[in-house]
């Protein structure tokens, strides 16, 4: 096993830096630097939904938006959301719905906005990880925390948290996995690539372990801002 370009071990995450409550007027918010990814997430709500016919009488509607700032990528991106952005918004919102006790807030909407300010592979995982912290910061009753990370392969190695350079490798495969912690239930799984099923099962398994590391980081961030006796979810 050789070292990776940036010197990390195969199962090592890029450095993460987080700040909760950065956006004063939001109900909850989170600023996250994760390697060269920078993301900001806010939560507004729950509040009555309008127009009424969008309401669900059994639970809150989670409206999640994943956006890339025009200056977050190599060539300027149009501010108009692409199909990819819409797909990611949809599945990311579903992944958080499982973490929030949405059944407590029928007929309301919870708006979760994430904006990628700077990108370097793994942005959807970074956005979900930040959004999950913003939900906790908002004091929403939670079933757990969603911890997300990329797990994949590059240059013949199974590795966690790929960079853009690693994603561009000839044999690269990249799986975004979101895990409801501490339950270890899979709430997001997206991949494009070409990988034997046994190898891919291994990646998922590695991804689950990576999510635990992300979860530890998230717990620390929350405990730092909201010190409690004992652990937050246990």
């Amino acid at each position, binding site marked *: 096993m050789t070292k990776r370009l940036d010197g990390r071990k195969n199962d090592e995450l890029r450095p993460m830096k987080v700040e909760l409550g950065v956006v004063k007027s939001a109900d909850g918010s989170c600023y996250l630097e994760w390697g060269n990814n920078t993301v900001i997430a806010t939560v507004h709500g729950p509040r009555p939904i309008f127009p009424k016919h969008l309401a669900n009488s059994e639970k809150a509607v989670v409206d999640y938006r994943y956006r890339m700032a025009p200056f977050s990528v190599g060539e300027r991106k149009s501010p108009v959301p692409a199909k990819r952005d819409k797909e990611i918004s949809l599945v990311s919102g579903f992944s958080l719905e499982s973490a929030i006790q949405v059944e407590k807030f029928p007929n309301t909407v919870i708006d979760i906005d994430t904006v990628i300010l700077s990108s370097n592979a793994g942005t959807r995982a970074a956005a979900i990880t930040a959004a999950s912290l913003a939900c906790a910061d908002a004091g929403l009753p939670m079933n757990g925390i969603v911890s997300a990370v990329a797990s994949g392969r590059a240059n013949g190695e199974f590795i966690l948290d790929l960079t853009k350079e690693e994603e561009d490798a000839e044999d690269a495969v990249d799986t975004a996995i979101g895990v409801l912690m501490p339950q*270890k239930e899979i709430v997001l799984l997206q*991949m494009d*690539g070409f990988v034997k*099923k046994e190898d891919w099962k291994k990646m998922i398994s590695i991804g689950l372990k990576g999510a635990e590391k992300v979860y530890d980081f998230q717990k620390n961030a929350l405990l730092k801002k909201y010190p409690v006796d004992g652990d937050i979810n246990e």
Partner: protein
Amino acid sequence: MSSINSVDLVNSKEILESIKLGKRKDGRDLLEYRNLEIKTGFLPSADGSSWVKLGNTEIIAGIKFVVGTPYPDSPDKGSMSLNLELSGLSSPNFITGPPQIDAVEFGRVADRAIRHANIINFEDLAIVPGEKVFIAFIDCIAVNADGNLIDATQLAAITALMNAKIPKLDENYNIILKEYTDKDISMNLKNIPVSITFDKVADKIILDSNQVEELASSARFSLGIVGDTVTSCHKTKGGVFSEEEINFMIDTAVGKYAEFSKIILDSRK
């Protein structure tokens, strides 16, 4: 899906009860697909076409090749673009309703289940490398939407593609209508991609949900498969899967591969 009414909701509860007991209302096993029919090459105007009927779900796909410029990061490759439209044919609500987020999602998943399978040699779609390439437009229209649009769309798209012929060009690289070259689009036939979509209903894993079963589904998982290789996946809806459930679905999908890849191969005329 916006055309669901209260009758469907009642049905959906019955379905939950039934699936808890391991049975489906239409008599299928949990992992059994509905009846599948594929008709290809039936449209005189398209460069390739297919009509897929999966139970009552029907998708028509048509191919048109267009001469365009390559992407800057792959100057010597053509490209493909898959678009799904939930037209008024299948439900007038699709016209008057909210933005078709379903159409975007289903189309994207079907697209990814083809794009990464290496069945198309995109180099073969180059005309003048760096300048002119073919873009294969795969337009899919939902004629009837009764569940599992992802797999039906992927089937329609791939069988239309395999039915397609590449147009001849004049000296200015304009397409000559109704004249075709001999070569097909260099399909790498051992890499036929298959899309397999699971739903989780009453904590059971089922395949090929119809529209009412989809209403009762808490989580969904789509896989793009080539042989024993996974080429794409997509988890959606608000529920959860355990690692064991994911592994079970991977194994099941790979197990279904032979049957579907043969059906797709047989659709060629």
